[in-house]
């Protein structure tokens, strides 16, 4: 029987006490259980940094890759072995700094997988430098001076790059995160989840209290749920102009940041995946993945004849 401990490993966890990563890894394990996905059918991929250690804590096939290269490695594995449920994770520096080119181009492919961004505004493991999502003008405690360049907007980038499921959640709201991860994994196509996360050691600005809105004149959580606000980012008919309208809405929404920060699904659309398109080119892929087929006895005689 599958239970929560089925998805856990005995590996010593060395994240800082109170790290938002705990919430994310717990939510991943709970989601896998809820979906009744057997561990050997799941592969978790990570980049480098604190978040990079995630696969070691999850009992599933685990690939701890290179800084910024999690998406290409996950792509290769997913395409060759499409029976696997592929979840890639990585920090915001990993995905939007050193790996930004892969982030954009992976979105374009609409591969059927899920990418979870641990978004805390700092490079934690190298001791707190500004990451691509840290707003301009902000100085966290380990920075010598405030950031003088603009932040990137992960949601807007994801929508513009072609991810067909784009959502945001919060590491300390495990229930919402679990629900979002499940929707992401169930989505057929590239799903991107931006997980706002605290770094209690280095980000002394975007703290649990800050997300809770305790600094506001009228104390109220900064985070609000899109679905509660009447926002609907789901494209009903991808063959119409609705696509552009909904993408536009998502972009506008994604720039809301400050006293109010939306979480939930910004954009969602079902269109053929990369795997679908490959199967159109190679009908044999419809039967079973090449990893289960005998491609080791190909007849090359016609190719040689072609050259005579």
């Amino acid at each position: 029987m599958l239970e929560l401990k089925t998805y856990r490993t005995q590996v010593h966890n060395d994240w800082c006490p109170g790290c938002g990563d705990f919430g994310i890894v717990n939510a991943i394990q709970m989601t896998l259980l809820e979906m009744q996905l057997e561990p050997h059918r799941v592969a978790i991929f990570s980049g480098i940094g604190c978040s990079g250690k995630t696969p070691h804590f999850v009992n599933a096939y685990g690939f701890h890759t290179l800084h910024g290269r999690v998406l290409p490695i996950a792509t290769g594995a997913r395409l060759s072995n499409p029976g696997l449920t592929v979840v890639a994770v990585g920090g915001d520096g990993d995905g939007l700094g050193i790996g930004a080119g892969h982030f954009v181009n992976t979105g374009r492919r609409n591969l059927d997988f899920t990418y979870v961004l641990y978004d805390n505004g700092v490079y934690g493991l190298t001791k707190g430098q500004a990451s691509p999502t840290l707003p301009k003008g902000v100085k966290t405690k380990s920075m010598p001076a405030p950031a003088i360049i603009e932040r990137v907007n992960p949601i807007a980038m994801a929508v513009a790059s072609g991810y067909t499921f784009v959502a945001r959640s919060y590491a300390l709201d495990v229930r919402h995160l679990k629900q979002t991860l499940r929707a992401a994994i169930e989505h057929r196509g590239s799903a991107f989840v931006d997980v706002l996360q605290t770094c209690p050691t280095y980000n002394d600005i975007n703290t649990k209290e800050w997300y809770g809105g305790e600094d506001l004149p009228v104390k109220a959580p900064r985070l609000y749920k899109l679905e509660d606000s009447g926002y609907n980012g789901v494209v009903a008919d991808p063959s119409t102009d609705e696509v552009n309208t909904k993408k536009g809405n998502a972009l506008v929404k994604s720039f809301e940041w400050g006293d109010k920060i939306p979480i939930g699904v910004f954009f969602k659309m079902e269109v053929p995946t990369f795997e679908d398109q490959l199967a159109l080119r190679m009908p044999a892929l419809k039967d079973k993945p090449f990893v289960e087929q005998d491609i080791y006895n190909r007849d090359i005689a016609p190719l040689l004849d072609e050259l005579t």
Partner: protein
Amino acid sequence: MTVTNSFTWMIGGPQGSGINSVAENFAKACIRGGLHIFANIEYHSNIKGEHSYYRLRVESKAPRSHVDWIDLLVALDRETIFGDMNKPHPTHRGHRHEVSPGGGIIYDRSLNLTPDSFGRDDIKLFPIPYMDLLVEALKEFGKDKELSKYQVMVNTIALGASLGLADYDFDLATEAIREGFTGRKAALGDLNVSAAKRGYDYAKTSFGEDAFPIKLRKQPLSGKRMMIRGVQAVAIAKLKAGCGFQTYYPITPATDESEYLESHQKEYNMIVVQAEDEIAAINMATGAAHAGLRSSTSTSGPGFSLMAEGLGWAGITEAPGPVVILYQRAGPATGLPTRTEQADLRFALHAAHGEFPRIIIAPGDVVETYYDTFDAFNYAEHYQVPVILLTDKFLASTYQDIPLFNSDDLKVDRGDLLKESDLVASTDYRRYRWTELGISPRAIPGQKGGIFWTTGDEHDEHGHITEASDIRIKMMRKRMRKIELAGEVIPDSKKAILHGPKSAPVTLVGWGSSKGAILDGMEDLKTDGIETNFLQVRYVNPFPTNLVQQALGQARRKIAIENNYSAQMAGLIREKTGIAMDNTIVKFDGRPFSQNEIYEGVKDIIKNGIKEVTVSHA
């Protein structure tokens, strides 16, 4: 004096003038007539307009290299003859100087060139009214109003004229031309044949049967032969080896291989992904290898530079691949992007930080390319290491005619690959289990009982991060043991080859694509009374230390011949064996060695006492 079946022909013109197709048709017509060819192209990094040329050598016995002289030059433009010396930044002097005494030049009569302007009184001039003949051919098909659309066909007229001067069987050319136009384009085939025939007849009637001293005559066919170049040999070997996943980022000269594979992916079931860069290309391929498919990526130097990081990850994670095809071109940076070089030997050997095992094979010709590529996939899975096939632009793009590959002895070896039935009962599968040989039995993601972790951090047997010094030492030894093992298992006969007599006054040492020029050059040297043998190093890693020691230990004069500046293989040999070369012949102008350059280079050393020779296309 008439010469039969020994002929070098060159066609030159602006990029985009269709020199490839006519040269390849000519080559095909020769092969069908039992002759043998060697055909190589030189071109600029440009889409349209810059000078490019295709050289076709035809012999009665299969040539393995080209020569620098031209018996018959076909000029599609003025620049082919005179160069671009009138431009602000000239790059070449044209090819009129390369025409052999008694040879000739075919050119456009409407250029109105005076014989004096060629500056040669020892060659023959064959002005042809390209346009007039083309208009006649177009009229026959009612297309003379569309001259501009068909203007490129003057190349076919020039081909016809060449065949006429060499008095070759026109039907063989007809067949070759027609094959290029099938289905709805068949009418175009007829038009091209008509154009070629007009060139053929014009040359015969205007200049007479004896105008050109070299004749091509059919000979009996020696079995079925393919006209094939390096990229095709690599691609076909990948299909034969069961490669299921290929990635690439567009780059000269590697892309042709991926395009070939993509064009055949439907029949052969191979996923081909154009990645966003070479970083993604190698990492996708490594991901695919870990996930169970044989995988590969192909690139040249600039791309391989980006792949260094990913190569290291494949190394430490003991990925069963990928196979990386490195088509060297002249560097560094963009260098000479469409030209050849052998300057990435050291780079391939050391790319990426840290130490990890890798296998590097450098095939010497198109046949070795096929078998070495096939082997590369077996090694990748058997030893769980990245494998680099080190070849170059010259080998990639040069055509030769060879018998059909015999694949009878090729067997796929997937190494110690576990089945799910081996794993279901296991409760403690360890992907990096210590074994005597260093190779751990491998599960494939998706298998029940095979769950593993893999990481670019140092790791324990389960694949979890560790910084423990004892485990680090064990893991390093485990990984490095595999390259020692490969060195023990792979037969010496594959790793290095001593061509020619066991002992000779002069031993030539080379690797990779210069093999053909060295072998042909040796024959010229022999004719001249200089006996040589040739040590071809085919495996860069594991290095055939014993074999090289044996071959060179007793050698009297050792000459390294390399298509690079610093004679990198000579340095590697010295590192591995302590044996230093006596002389070097290097070439680093981006052009491949010709047969005569090998001959001249060795002569310079033996007769003129020069220690280090640099030969050059200029």
